[in-house]
């Protein structure tokens, strides 16, 4: 609009800055658009410079095209549950002496208490050590290969510890052909993934290896079509789950879909009954399933040149790591944060370990904390009102690229979940992704002690932004 034509057009100003100017405009009968502005990148000059480089029109255009491709893949992905298998037979790169863990890469020495508890428990479970002391020695001996789940097309909840004989979901994204894996829910709270490792934990893992996994695998052998997980996830959101901290509906839907096949397997009624009782013992049964659903979708969006879309967020209890489509397999990390939320009776925030697990893949995909508005029943976790829960989901629109039309939130007029976190938008607005998650005790051997919300460290996004500025704005 030329200057002269502005003179004959109604003035429609945006007021960016002092509120008193907006009041003066209103007093003159002009309604300004109001801003809730904070300095980009928290006022860090280096971050602002990086944002500036990515805003050059030619660069911004390339990024927009790449992000459209990336988010298009996330929305188009159709993850199907194809079956279950043991990690050694299915997960790429798995060996008898490999332990996969959650989060970005970490050495045994730097691992947090609960992750060390899970690792030693797994080594005993695998028969590689006769007790926890020997396991700790073995873990530090250099004979065990530690590697992030994410680097093996996998995700793992909490400690994410996955060893050779554990059973995993096998999920294929039928749109793009990639496969993803995750292990099975241990239910309850005193479990390996939360750092517990006593005999009861090992006994349960043995039963899962010998009965639970084989029954589920046999059931899916009978299901030739596979299960459309995106469809189930979408239904679960309509039934009040956000698919990270609330999985009541999703678990019901999943076991309902599996049941006809389970009953057709050759296992004994007693064994089938044990399986059903175990599934019924915790709403969390389907939690890992939605994680691997998200992983299968997000992997399809990885490695697109020039894209600033986040493809993974995960934590190992020490570091929080993210990966970005345009920077491929590179990790950008910052310190894992304290999870804030209600604790089980008898525990205080001083007992809690730092943020841990690959489950933030659900938020990366657009559910979990991003779909908070779908799950009013658990607003207590965020310590707020239902109204605020609605606000959380809307706020995530400010840092994402699109809304997923296949996974929607009824209470927000069927708004699609906010998808495709854009590193630039996070750095600019200072709005950090909202993650719903569980709290593990900081010491090994105890387990889950609460749940709540957490944000990633801004450093991870700032590092990623600088790398993108160096790479994309070349």
């Amino acid at each position, binding site marked *: *609009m030329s200057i002269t034509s502005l003179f004959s057009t109604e003035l429609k100003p945006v007021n*960016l800055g002092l509120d008193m100017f907006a009041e003066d405009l209103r007093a003159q009968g002009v309604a300004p658009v109001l801003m809730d502005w904070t300095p980009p990148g928290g006022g860090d000059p280096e971050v602002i410079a990086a944002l500036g480089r990515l805003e050059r029109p030619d660069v911004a255009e390339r990024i927009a095209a790449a992000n459209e491709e990336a988010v298009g893949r996330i929305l188009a992905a159709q993850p199907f549950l194809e079956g279950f298998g043991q990690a050694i037979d299915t997960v790429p790169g798995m060996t008898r002496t490999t332990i996969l863990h959650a989060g970005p890469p970490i050495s045994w020495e730097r691992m947090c208490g609960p992750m060390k508890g899970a690792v030693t428990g797994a080594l005993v479970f695998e028969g590689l050590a006769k007790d926890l002391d020997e396991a700790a020695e073995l873990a530090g001996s250099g004979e065990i290969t530690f590697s992030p789940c994410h680097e093996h097309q996998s995700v793992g909840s909490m400690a994410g510890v996955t060893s050779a004989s554990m059973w995993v979901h096998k999920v294929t994204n039928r749109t793009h052909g990639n496969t993803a894996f995750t292990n099975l829910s241990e239910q309850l709270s005193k479990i390996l993934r939360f750092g517990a490792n006593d005999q009861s934990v090992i006994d349960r893992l043995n039963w899962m290896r010998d009965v639970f996994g084989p029954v589920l695998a046999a059931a899916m052998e009978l299901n030739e079509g596979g299960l459309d997980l995106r469809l189930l996830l979408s239904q679960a959101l309509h039934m009040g789950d956000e698919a990270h901290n609330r999985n009541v509906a999703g678990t019901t839907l999943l076991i309902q879909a599996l049941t006809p096949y389970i009953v057709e397997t050759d296992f004994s009624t007693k064994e089938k009954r044990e399986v059903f009782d175990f599934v019924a013992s915790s709403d969390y049964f389907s939690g890992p399933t939605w994680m691997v659903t998200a992983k299968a979708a997000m992997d399809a969006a990885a490695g697109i040149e020039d894209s600033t879309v986040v493809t993974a967020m995960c934590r190992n209890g020490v570091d929080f790591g993210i990966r970005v489509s345009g920077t491929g397999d590179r990790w950008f990390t910052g310190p894992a944060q304290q999870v804030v939320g209600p604790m089980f009776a008898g525990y205080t925030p001083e007992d809690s370990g730092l943020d841990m697990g690959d489950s933030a893949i659900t938020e990366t995909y657009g559910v979990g904390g991003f779909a908070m508005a779908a799950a009013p029943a658990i607003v207590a976790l965020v310590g707020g009102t239902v109204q605020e829960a609605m606000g959380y989901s809307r706020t995530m629109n400010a840092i994402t690229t699109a809304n997923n039309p296949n996974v929607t939130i009824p209470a927000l007029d069927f708004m699609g979940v906010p998808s495709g976190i854009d590193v630039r938008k996070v750095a600019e*607005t200072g709005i950090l992704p909202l993650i719903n998650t569980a709290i593990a005790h900081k010491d090994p051997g105890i387990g889950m002690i609460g749940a709540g919300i957490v944000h990633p460290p801004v450093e991870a996004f700032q590092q990623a932004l600088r790398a993108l500025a160096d790479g994309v704005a070349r």
Partner: protein
Amino acid sequence: MTRHIDIRKNTYLDSVSLMSMSTKANAVEGVTQALLGMATPMNKEVLLNVGVQDPAIDAAKPSDLMIVIDAADDVIEDAIRAVNDILARKTRSADGAAEGRYRTLDGAFAEVPDTNLVLISVNGAYAAREARKALAAGKHVMIFSANVSVEDEIELKNLAHAKGLLLMGPDCGTAILNGTGLAFANAVRRGSIGIVGASGTGSQEISVRVHDFGGGVSQLIGTGGRDLSAEVGGLMMIDGIEALAADPETEVIVVVSKPPAEEVADKVLGVLGGTGKPAVVCFLGSPRTESGYPNVQLVSGTKPAALAAVLATGVDESTLDLHALNIPLIEEVRAKLAPEQKYVRGLFCGGTLCDEAMFAALAKFDNVHSNIQKDPAYVLGATDASREHTFLDMGDDDFTDGRPHPMIDPSLRLQRLVQEADDPEVGVIAMDFILGFGAHEDPVGVTVPAIEEAKAKAAARGQHLEILGYVLGTDLDTPALAGQVAQLEAAGVTIASSSTNLGLLAREFVAKGDNR
């Protein structure tokens, strides 16, 4: 004495809010000093300069809020509570208003696509980037923020020019577009006189004088004070003139600025000459008298500029009240002043008003000191005591560093006013009072107690202290002109009818017989 230091992570408040909260916090009973600010390198330096040093402050990031309170031991707890209350009130109202607000300009443009202008008043360090985004989205821009680099200014203005958009500023205090005042502006009649101004209060003054002479303003475009420098080359001024030339509502074009770079002045006059429309140019303090173009008239002050513009619209001069200088008044005041009362002290909010009064004094006196003097021998700093004739632009950077503009927060000027009254050689204190959008809600009322105190000090030593006031405003402003003038008169203040007359009267009041 106890020092309380509190760093609030990721808590952003704009600098003007913070400064007004600082003012309130410093007024809390028992507080020796309270400092509130974002932890920018500049603010940290400010703290260091006043002797506040702490590892927590060193570690704070620009997105963190720093709170430092010094108070007596027995009241520190109360002081902390009081300051927290002040902060809580602000944050609450900010939260309450957050509904329907946008975090980023791109977000706002996406939701409200028919916006056409962005008024930017965030910290100058961030203003250029936001302006770039607004221009990229095809929006006109006004940058109120100061402290934007000249490189950014040139880049933004070239970008705006290429897109045919306004880039008013940086440091652009005023504009009136389509009858709507932006930032600091007065409520004036709409009409056929278009103004392009590189000086904010100069533009305000001309708009008010035009209104007073019965004329009206079609558009008032601000360019920012650096536009006519050799580096910027008048980019916005020229685009503004051309837009007004093409505007059918604009019959007469007025240009106001401090003296421009010579080659830029030539360029601006050439463009005005080419418009064919009658034009009036006020380059304050410039020795030029001839424009070289028949349609372009050069005038010496803001009032002559407004008058010439109104006359150019075809108004008969004999129908106007010209507010000629009141000669009997001058004689009357001279008679009241003692022989030693030789000097004027000017305390100004408006930079152009200060300039105009200073130039009037310079026409008759040599010993004129100011923080905006061009002659280095006569430059005064903000903390220097006044000397001989002194004219202070208290809205200039050396006075506003770390505090709000005196048009918003008059406290520093009030202190200075009372201080000047201690000098028995002072005959006249000249002050401006600026009304309108963006300005203090009652600039006269807040000053009257200090005026009374100043006059009482002089009276105590048997002197009459002449206080000369000019109220820049109109009958349409809130508060209205008449009420503010009446308050001044009631306090014994002599009223000047314009910025030009303020300068002339102040000078003449102290000019002794031999100096005429």
